């Protein structure tokens, strides 16, 4: 049966996978499985920028995905970027099987503030739902409170709710009905 797999890449906060598993089980009618952690991919580090190339993470996820995995979501604590953009909260293969979320800029510590685990959990859930939404064909939503709205800075992540808006939620349900025969 097709599964939704969650995997840590490198070292991530202890509860991160659990947070994502709980949140995704509410929205995705698929068996959810946490896979053993993967190492940070070789060659992903860009010493000039002090960041990691997201594309290398995506390639590694695609290579290591179990054969019965419908989607694989990687969670990492390192700072991701692509050549064109200075950073990413996450990246997904649009309507494809892999996505990755970076927790680096979701920590309050990144902004010189005391760490708040509750806030980190909320942000992690929002970004995980966002990237998984893309893998199921959802595009950015114009409603700022929807998990699918585009967040280009942390305040916009905080403005989102930990769920999809009615329209995006419905699209997801229709997608599952079509794809999974549910």
């Amino acid at each position, binding site marked *: 049966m097709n599964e939704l797999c969650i995997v840590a890449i490198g070292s991530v906060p202890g509860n991160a996978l659990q947070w994502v598993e709980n949140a995704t089980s509410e929205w995705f009618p698929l068996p959810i499985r946490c896979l053993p952690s993967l190492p940070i991919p070789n060659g992903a580090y860009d010493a000039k920028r002090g960041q990691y190339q997201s594309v290398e993470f995506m390639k590694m996820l695609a290579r290591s995905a179990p054969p019965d995995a419908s989607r694989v979501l990687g969670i990492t604590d390192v700072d991701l970027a692509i050549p*064109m*953009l200075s950073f*990413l909260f996450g990246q997904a293969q649009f309507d494809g099987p892999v996505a990755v979320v970076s927790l680096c800029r979701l920590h309050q510590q990144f902004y010189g503030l005391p760490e708040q685990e509750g806030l980190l959990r909320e942000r992690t859930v929002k970004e995980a739902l966002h990237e998984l939404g893309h893998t199921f064909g959802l595009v950015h939503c114009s409603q700022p409170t929807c998990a699918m709205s585009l967040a280009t800075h942390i305040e916009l992540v905080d403005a989102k709710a930990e769920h999809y808006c009615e329209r995006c939620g419905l699209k997801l349900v229709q997608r599952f009905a079509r794809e999974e025969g549910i």
Partner: protein
Amino acid sequence: MKKNWPILVVDDEEVMCESMAAWLREDGYHVDTAPNGQKALELARAADYAICFVDLKMPGGMDGIETMMEIHRIRPEASIIIITAYATVDTAIQAMKEGAQEYIVKPCNPQEISMLVSRILKLKKLQSENAILRKKLTRQYRHHDVITKNPRMEEILTLTQEVSSLRSTVLIRGESGTGKELIARAVHFSGNRADKPFIVVSCAALTETLLESELFGYEKGAFTGATAQAKGKFELANGGTIFLDEIGDISSKLQADLLRVLQERRFYRVGATRRSRWMCASSPPPTRILPRKCRREISAKICTIAST
């Protein structure tokens, strides 16, 4: 809406192309990628891209500037954004001179790119709507849309065609309901001002003070209630046509103001000089009303070409 505005990313680095395309696809855009200028041109011939992100430095063959110029030749409407990791003032100036819409240095903040793309597409959408509306209007007011078999009316239509591209003032006379505004629109939309505004002012419907502010606009604080600067009809009709309906009904004071504008063919607002064609309409024949109500000078000015 987004699917109607395809985007092309041109870069010799596959990672750059694919990651940028993936990011834009998440926003709902249709994105194609090209590893070099030649492939970009091939794609541009086949699809009407709204935005092309073109890397400045591409080894071998065409560089970013050459690619941009060639894309512009094929698709003049495409907005080209030159991207580079090695920005210099010279390359930026050259790119902008050759027609780049933007010049950005990678890596960029995601918000910057997102806002840039939505700003360009918003403008394109407005331009496209504007073109469609203008086309509709032009079609609506072509000469042959005025249906008549009356030889006198046909004479008027011939005359309107003759005057449509002149800068002269036009006086249209006729009883109420005989189609003065229709003729005015026919003059405007068949001439070389068709793509500029056509502004109608009903002189009879407004009081003297109101008409003055309507025509000339006003500055903030000019009178009680003028809380902000407002453009007048003359300013709105910039380069187009202003149709003064029932001009015979305006007061003597306003006639003097209009005379000055007519004589100088321009009016003054802070920091701007505007020019527009005049068209006036009068329901009672002016020969009858002019001696009583209309100044001789203004009558002479507006009667340059008169059609009854």
